[in-house]
């Protein structure tokens, strides 16, 4: 469980917010503060005021899987195989096990033919799939995913969802502009101008947004 108390960071202000274990979608208009909040939750930036705790402990970087919305900002290494291996290398995983896990991970995402390619030659979608695999490969308990789905076609998105749901991550917090995807999550938080506008189950949140374009399109079309 993630708990926010009296958070202040730039224009972001959140008094008290609990993000329970499970899946949470963070939605809102462009510039509403989603990425900023996600980075704070992941411990990638310290709040100016207030606190964020994960299971009662202050959030620290490196403990959670994180996928940045900028595909190029995820890569540390030039070769895809090295990029996928990095989280395991940092944990001193034995080489034989590491090679096997990298190969297995690449196969699950259909990237095994690209392992020797350099990251700059991958497409945007391939880069974010690589970033997702890299975030999942060390089996983190918490995953923070920032709008990576906007770079994926439908079939790749279905594959990515399978990878996330089978990852064993206890908590998944994800920013998305895909409201149909958000509606499948356990909880939805709406940010507006740096404040929590609504938070609750998808039914509670989206029933209040029915008159807006934020309402999940499939619900509107196929109700």
């Amino acid at each position: 469980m993630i708990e926010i108390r009296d958070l202040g960071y730039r224009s972001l202000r959140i008094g008290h917010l609990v993000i329970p274990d499970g899946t949470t979608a963070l939605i809102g208009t462009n510039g509403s503060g989603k990425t900023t909040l996600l980075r704070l939750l992941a411990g990638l930036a310290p709040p100016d005021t207030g606190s964020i705790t994960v299971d009662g402990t202050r959030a620290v970087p490196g403990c959670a899987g994180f996928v940045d919305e900028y595909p190029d900002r995820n890569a540390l290494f030039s070769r895809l195989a090295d990029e996928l291996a990095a989280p395991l290398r940092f944990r001193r995983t034995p080489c034989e096990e590491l090679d096997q896990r990298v190969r297995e991970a690449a196969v699950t995402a259909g990237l095994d033919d690209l392992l020797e390619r350099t990251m700059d030659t991958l497409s945007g979608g391939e880069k974010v799939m690589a970033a997702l695999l890299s975030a999942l490969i060390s089996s983190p308990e918490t995953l923070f995913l920032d709008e990576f789905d906007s770079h994926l076609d439908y079939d790749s998105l279905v594959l990515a969802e399978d990878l996330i749901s089978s990852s064993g991550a206890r908590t998944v917090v994800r920013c998305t502009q895909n409201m149909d995807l958000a509606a499948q999550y356990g909880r939805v938080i709406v940010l507006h101008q740096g404040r929590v506008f609504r938070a609750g189950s998808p039914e509670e949140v989206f029933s209040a947004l029915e008159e807006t374009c934020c309402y999940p399109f499939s619900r509107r079309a196929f109700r």
Partner: protein
Amino acid sequence: MKLSLSAVEWHAGSWKFRADATFTPGVHLVSGRVGSGKTTLALLSARLLQPDAGAVAYEDITSRTLSFQYPEYHITGSTLYEEAESYGVDPFAACARAGLSGRDEEDPFRLSRGELKWFQLTCLFMNRWDLLILDEPFSALDCRGKLAVCRSIEENRGGIVLVSTHEQYILPKTDCLWEMMSGELTLRGTLPDAISTWESAPAPIRRLREQGVIPANLTRDDILEAACRMHE
């Protein structure tokens, strides 16, 4: 006005791109799996990439531009004012249209990715283009931004518009549908006939097709109308 890719080939290692296509005025939607070659098509069409074989030819195209998949690749100015000026548009008008009034002295990199994307697209849409190539224009935008992109594409009618996208729910009214399949560009045809053979179709269209319903086009209104028919 015409863009022709005649027997075009481009290689990256063992991966090969192939296209033999002609684009005339109208909205051309290009879809395809991740890594299928959509961005390569955009770069070749904009002549930012030279083909290894074949030719890319323009006929009566006097103005052209490409919107990159990543908005950060466009930035040349240290403020939004300078950035808008680099497109030859009025900076204050561009900021206002992008919902960023009063922020003209802000560093573009201080914007959220969605704000930056919309600002960059706004600057592009403030000019008219004979050839407008949009690589993933909907990526990072909220639903209002996506709808605004569709409106702007509609306003640019008269020229050739190439839109490559993974967007599932908010698409522009489209004249011609193309698919990139493992590096090869395939013409699916004009709407609505092309929908029945569209392999990488978005989720709502797949759902309609499963029920034997084909929408007239790809806009939200078209999908909603088709969904009503499904319920009849």
